[in-house]
């Protein structure tokens, strides 16, 4: 079968489908009446624009949309402000100052030569001073020197 015949079948098929559907189309007025009833049931935010009561539904919808958008922006700004406040309070300003004070104190003590090793106390063994032997040379020499001086004087 050629493309032209196939295309003819497509066109005819759709035309037949259209005829069938059109014959079963529900009544427009009945459908609009149902839609109007449903629209009346939907609660609407009534906004009087420019003092004119009974503004067109399109205008009311527009105002409602703008109010929703404004509300969204206000909530966003509030949330951002609250988050910023929390960050500042729990934050870092206090912790930073404390850290800087510690660093300054450490630097000052290190520069003054007060730093000692954490293991320095291990070198302080009790009795370590007893390990050194006293010498007598110094004492004898000192005695000789004083004796001869006395002899010379006498």
């Amino acid at each position, binding site marked *: *079968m050629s493309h032209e015949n196939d*295309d003819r079948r*497509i066109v005819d*098929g759709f035309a037949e489908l259209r005829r069938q559907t059109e014959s*079963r189309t529900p009544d*427009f007025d009945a459908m609009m009446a149902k*839609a109007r009833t449903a629209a009346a049931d939907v609660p609407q935010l009534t906004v009087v624009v420019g003092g004119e009561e009974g503004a067109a539904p*399109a205008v009311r919808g527009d105002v409602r949309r703008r109010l929703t958008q404004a509300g969204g922006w206000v909530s966003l700004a509030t949330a951002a402000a609250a988050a910023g406040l929390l960050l500042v309070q729990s934050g870092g300003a206090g912790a930073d100052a404390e850290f800087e004070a510690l660093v300054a104190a450490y630097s000052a003590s290190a520069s003054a030569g007060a730093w000692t090793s954490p293991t320095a106390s291990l070198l302080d063994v009790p009795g370590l001073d007893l390990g050194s032997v006293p010498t007598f040379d110094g004492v004898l020499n000192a005695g000789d020197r004083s004796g001869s001086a006395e002899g010379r004087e006498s």
Partner: protein
Amino acid sequence: MDPSRHHSEELEARLAELHSASFGWACSCCGWNEADAEDVLQTTYLKVISGRARYDGRSAFRTWLFGVIRHTAREFLRSKRSHREKSMILFAQQPDDVEHPEPTASLEAGELAAEVKASLSTLPDRQREVLELVFYQEMTIREAADVMEVSIGSARVHYDRGKKKLRALLSSESKSEGTT
């Protein structure tokens, strides 16, 4: 006359003029389920008269209205699918494949319209949509692209592929009818 009343009367007149075509498009968007199409069309009218959907004049009125119907049908079917899935979980049953029936499922003997409808249900959504808009609604491919919110190039590709598949499907069905 009150301008808002005049506006709504004018709007209703335009909706009435396109009512039959709108119902056809709603059927098409709902997989030719007429009960669903009626619900979708009524919700669309509700959106229009309550101002939730507003025509801004940037496109033809029919193109805009068909776009609203398409969106409404998608919302409706998504919600319906969600309800069905919940009830499936509740009753622990497997879902039936009602969205894409086999080409022969709804085939009525000797009816070309039924053949077309059944064949369309096997095509991907975009291909089905562009063919229905062009052949059923007699739109140009550009108008169909506007309703579908795709570029004209994309719509043309969907149209060519869809038409080729539909041609093949109808041809094979006519052959199988011929042999039986």
